């Protein structure tokens, strides 16, 4: 279970730092779109693997130094559901 503070940090990290390549709206950029409809066919375990270990040969880096497995699971679940907006 993630604390509300950590949840806020993760939302900001995905929107802002992942957003550098995937777009603030996650519609894609240098990296692909991360919307529910673009991820629907991909197994969650593979998405988690990509987040934690990156994809060698592409610009996707491993985020393992900054995320626990549980946090990566949470991010995958949120992405598949439609990622929350940052609260103002």
């Amino acid at each position, binding site marked *: 279970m993630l604390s509300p503070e950590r949840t806020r940090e993760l939302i900001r990290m995905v929107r*802002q*730092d992942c957003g*550098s390549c995937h777009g*603030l*709206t996650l*519609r894609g950029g*240098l990296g692909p779109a991360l919307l529910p409809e673009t991820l629907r066919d991909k197994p969650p375990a593979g998405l988690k693997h990509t987040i934690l270990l990156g994809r060698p040969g592409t*610009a996707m880096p*491993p985020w393992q*130094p900054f995320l626990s497995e549980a946090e990566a699971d949470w991010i995958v679940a949120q992405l598949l559901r439609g990622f929350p907006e940052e609260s103002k």
Partner: protein
Amino acid sequence: MRKALRAWCWAIVALLPVLAWSTEPVLRGTGDLGVIIERSAGRVLIVNTSSNSIISRVDGLGDLSHASVVFSRDQRYAYVFGRDGGLSKVDILRGTLEKRIVQGGNSIGGAISQDGRLVAVANYEPGGLKVFAADTLEPVADIPAAYGDGKLSKVVGIADLPGDRFIYSLFDADQIWIADLHDPKSPKVEKFSNIGKAPYDGLVTPDSRYYLAGLFGEDGIALLDTWQPQQGVQRILASYGQGEEKLPVYKMPHLRGWAVAGHQVYLPAIGHHEVLVADTVTWKEAARIAVRGQPVFVVARPDGRQVWVNFAFPDNGFVQVIDTLTGQIVQTLEPGKAVLHLEFTPRGENVWVSARDDHKVLIYDTASFAKLAELPAESPSGIFFTSRAHRIGF
């Protein structure tokens, strides 16, 4: 009676400024103005670099998660390129959005032509270059970045060249293209292939002669002499990462023309905690400077005496300053959380720094490194001053 008359006169005197205001706008130039992107809010701040203040806000610019700006040559209009394919023309004198079009699905940046008549947008989706009339934003030309069997490449690293040409790189196709828009109705495109794996950004030197494309997929920089393009693309700094493990890259570095200071160019080493220095006559490596993290922007003060560097996550709270005479780091600043960009005032006495996660822009004196002011801004990213209007490659 006399008292009443005197009161009446005073009333007129007091009203004079109001009357003057209503009949004639306050006259001013735009040479000390600029634009700051508030990336999450889809808004830009219009700022004054003489008074260190925010003078207005312009809303409604869409997704600005990767936004960049070029200026009209009269320095009145800012063309803002948004991530969502939006191209917005902002009147910085009036503080209004004059026109906005959505010209593509996903874009990375743009450039303005030498004569100021054409604005070109580099698109990821659909991959290619689109060119618009600077005054009306009406479409002028569409140049898909087609390669192989008709696939479209993401376009990166666009800059203007003399002769109403634009130079840019194809991230997915390992190519550099020069589009000649001298006759906008029939653009001519010159293509250079096999320039190196995955060019991620590019710059032209301040004289526009050399185009450099940073490579993500391998070490080194692709170099094209645009005065002698028949000589083709050569590789420089190819050995910089050899024997060292490349670190994961949490933010792509950016290349812009004012990384050139004196006869040297200062470049981010992708995947390394280093700034690379190359001689702009021989294009040989001159030095490597160890820095706090992976550089994102490596920017020379306009006089070239200092080079300022910011860094990728997780070192993005720091800014370091290199003295170009000694090659030493002379200052390490911690302006705030998530420093995304920095911009010098036209002659470099001050630098403005955006700290995204602290929601502020900080202004420093570049001689004393004293903080002069802080301005509130919502998730600020790029800072662009109108002095860019008169520089090739901006």
